[in-house]
C-alpha cells in the first residue's frame, strides 16, 4: 500500500522543503528504531482487566455466532476490490490482514445518513424523526490501533454541549475489537503522534497475533468483558506464546507541543503557501481520515417528500466556507489546507485537549499530488 513512485517524484520536484517518508526513514532510522521499540514496550500489556487466548478458528466462530445473534459485525472486507470496514454476512468475508481504504469512523458516523424525512401536503408539512434506539448492536472487529484511537477523540466533539445521538447511540451500542498492527508502510506514522502498533486506546477488547497462530486477548472495558463472558467457551487461558513481530512505522515522535506552539503564533506565515500550493482541494484526505468529522446537512427529495441528510464534508473544498454573498473567508487553497493542519494540531487541542490525527497515513497514500502531512508536521516541529 505504499505510495506510487509518481507521487514521490512530485514531492521532490515541487516541495523541496518537505521530505518524503523514505527520506525521513533514512535520516532517522536509528532513532526511530529505538523509539518505536520503547513505545511498544511502554504501551503494550498495561491497564488490561482480563487476559485470554483465542484461536483464529474460534474467532471466526465468534463472528458467525454474533451475526447469528442478530448483531451487526463490521470488519475489513473486500467490496469490489476495495477493502472497507463493512458489515459481514459471515466470518469468511473478513480480510483481517488488510488495512481498509477508509477508516473505522463510519461505523459511528456514516458517510451519509438520514437525520429526518419530510412530506408536504398543500401548506402542511409533516416531519418524521429517526429513532436512534433502532440502531443495531454492533461489534467492530479487526480495527487497527490508528482507527480505534480516533474514536474516543471523536467522542469529544459529538458529545460536548449539544449531544449528537446519531454518533453517541451507535457508540454506546458498539463493542470495539482492536487488532495489533503487523504491517507498516512508509506512509504510516502512528508512532509520531504518540500512538503505536500495539496501542489499545479506543479498544474494548484488543487482539495481538501470536507466533504459532491465534490471538492474545485483553479487555479494557465492561463491553470487552461482556463479549468474552458471553462466549466464554471460545476463549481459553492465555498461553506463553510470543507476540509476532509488530509493525515499526518509520517516523520518530513529533514534539506535538512544539508544533502547537508554532501554530499558535503563525496563522500568517509564508510557509503555508509553500506547504499547500499544490493542494487541488479534492477532499480525499478528509474522507479517508479516521478523525476528520466535518459534515454538511442537505435535503434530498422533491417538492412533495424527501429526506434530510448529514454527509461527510471537507475543509479542503472551496464551497465549505463560501458565503451566499460570494465572500469566502478561506478563498485560496493554502488557507483551506492551513485550516486542516490548524484544526488537527491546534484548534481541537485548544477546545478538547486532543490531537485530531492518529498517524494512519491514509491521506498520504491517497493524496493525488503527494502532500505528506507527516512531513509537514515534522517540518513545523523543527521551526
Amino acid at each position, binding site marked *: 500500500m505504499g505510495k506510487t513512485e509518481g507521487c514521490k517524484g512530485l514531492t521532490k520536484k515541487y516541495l523541496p522543503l518537505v521530505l518524503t517518508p523514505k527520506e525521513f526513514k533514512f535520516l532517522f532510522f536509528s532513532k526511530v528504531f529505538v523509539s518505536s521499540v520503547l513505545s511498544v514496550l511502554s504501551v503494550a500489556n498495561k491497564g488490561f482487566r482480563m487476559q485470554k487466548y483465542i484461536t483464529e478458528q474460534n474467532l471466526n466462530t465468534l463472528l458467525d455466532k454474533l451475526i447469528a445473534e442478530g448483531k451487526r459485525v463490521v470488519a475489513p472486507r473486500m467490496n469490489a476490490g476495495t477493502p472497507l470496514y463493512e458489515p459481514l454476512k459471515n466470518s469468511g468475508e473478513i480480510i483481517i490482514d488488510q488495512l481498509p481504504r477508509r477508516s473505522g469512523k463510519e461505523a459511528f458516523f456514516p458517510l451519509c445518513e438520514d*437525520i*429526518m424525512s*419530510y412530506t*408536504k401536503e398543500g*401548506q*402542511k*408539512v*409533516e*416531519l*418524521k*424523526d*429517526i429513532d*436512534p434506539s433502532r440502531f443495531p448492536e454492533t461489534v467492530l472487529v479487526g480495527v487497527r490501533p490508528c482507527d480505534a484511537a480516533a474514536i474516543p477523540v471523536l467522542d469529544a*466533539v*459529538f458529545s*460536548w*454541549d*449539544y*449531544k*449528537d*445521538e*446519531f454518533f453517541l447511540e451507535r457508540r454506546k451500542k458498539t463493542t470495539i475489537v482492536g487488532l495489533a498492527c503487523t504491517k507498516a508502510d512508509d506512509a504510516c506514522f502512528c508512532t509520531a503522534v504518540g500512538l503505536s502498533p500495539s496501542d489499545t486506546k479506543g479498544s474494548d477488547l484488543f487482539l495481538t497475533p501470536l507466533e504459532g497462530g491465534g490471538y492474545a486477548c485483553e479487555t479494557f472495558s465492561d463491553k470487552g468483558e461482556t463479549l468474552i463472558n458471553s462466549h466464554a467457551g471460545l476463549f481459553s487461558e492465555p498461553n506463553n506464546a510470543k507476540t509476532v513481530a509488530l509493525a515499526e512505522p518509520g517516523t520518530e515522535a513529533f514534539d506535538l507541543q512544539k508544533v502547537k506552539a508554532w501554530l499558535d503564533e503563525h*496563522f*500568517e506565515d509564508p510557509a503555508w503557501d509553500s506547504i499547500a500550493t499544490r493542494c487541488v482541494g479534492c477532499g480525499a484526505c478528509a474522507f479517508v481520515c479516521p478523525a476528520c*468529522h*466535518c*459534515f*454538511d*446537512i*442537505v*435535503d434530498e*427529495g*422533491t*417538492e412533495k417528500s*424527501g429526506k*434530510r441528510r*448529514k454527509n461527510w*464534508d471537507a*475543509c479542503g473544498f472551496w464551497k*465549505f*466556507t*463560501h*458565503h*451566499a*454573498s460570494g*465572500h469566502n*473567508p*478561506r478563498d485560496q487553497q493554502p*488557507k483551506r489546507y492551513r*485550516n486542516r493542519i*490548524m*484544526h488537527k494540531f*491546534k*484548534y481541537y487541542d*485548544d*477546545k478538547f485537549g486532543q490531537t485530531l490525527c492518529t498517524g494512519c497515513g491514509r491521506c498520504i497514500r491517497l493524496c493525488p499530488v503527494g502532500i505528506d502531512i507527516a512531513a509537514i508536521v515534522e517540518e513545523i516541529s523543527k521551526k
Partner: protein
Amino acid sequence: MCDHTNKNIYLPYLATVEEVIDETPDVRTLKLVFQDEQVRDSFNFRAGQFAEYSAFGAGESTFCIASAPTRKGYIECCFRSVGRVTEELRRLEVGDSIGVRGPYGNSFPIEQFEGKNLVFVAGGIALPPLRTLIWNCLDLREKFGEITIVYGARTESDLVYKRELKEWEERGDVRLVKTVDPGGNSSEWDGRVGFVPTILEEAAPGAENTIALVCGPPIMIKFTLPVLEKLGFTDEQVYTTLENRMKCGLGKCGRCNVGNVYVCKDGPVFTAKQVKAMPMEF
C-alpha cells in the same frame, strides 16, 4: 408526527408563515408562528441569537432572529434571496410551513448596556441583527440613555425596514441618521449622502458612557472601527456580530470557525477587542 421531546438535535420545529413583507426588491421578511402551542410559549431567545430556517426540499439557511425578544408569540427572519435555499424560502406564502431550529449562539449582554447611551451602526442587509436589539431597547426605553442609529445602504431602495425607519425618525427619543451611497439617492431623498463611516464621523456621537453596536459588510466594518476609535470608543465599548457560513449551528460540523473561535457557539456576538484578537479569516 414529530415529537420534540426526543433527542434529535437536527430536527426543526414547524412554523407557519403569518406575514410576508418585501423590504427591498430582493430582501424579504417572514413573520413566523410556531405550529405547536407549547413551542410557541416556550421558545425564548435573546437579541443577537440566530436560527436555522428550513425550506423543505432545499435545505437550511442561517439568519439571526430579527424580531425582538420583547415581542412575544412570533419570530421574524429577514433575508436576501441569493441562493438555492433563500430562493425557496422566498417562494413561501402566507400559511405555508417552514422549519426553524434554534435559538443558537450567544447574545448581546443587554443588561450591561442599561443606563448607557447606545449607538447602532448598520449597513444594508446587516440591520436585522441590530434591529432585534433596537426594538428590545426601545421596548424598555427608560432603561437606556440616548439612542442613535446610523444606517446606510447603497441606494434608497436597498434600505430595509423602511416603515420602521420612518417610525424611528418620528420618535422623539431616537436619533436616526440615514444615508445612501453617492449616486444611490433620488431627488426626493431627505437623508444624508455618503458612506456609513463618513456619516458616522459627521454625526459624532460621544463615547462617554456609550456602547457602539456595528454590523455591516466587512468593508464597512473595516472603515467604521477607526472612526469609532477616533470618536474615543475603546474596543471593549464596541460590539459586532459575525456571520459565517454554518450548517449545524451546534458546534459540530466544523465550518464557521475563525481560528479556534466557533462563531456558532462562541459568537455570533463579539466585542471589537475579541474580533481584533482573531486571525483574519472572516
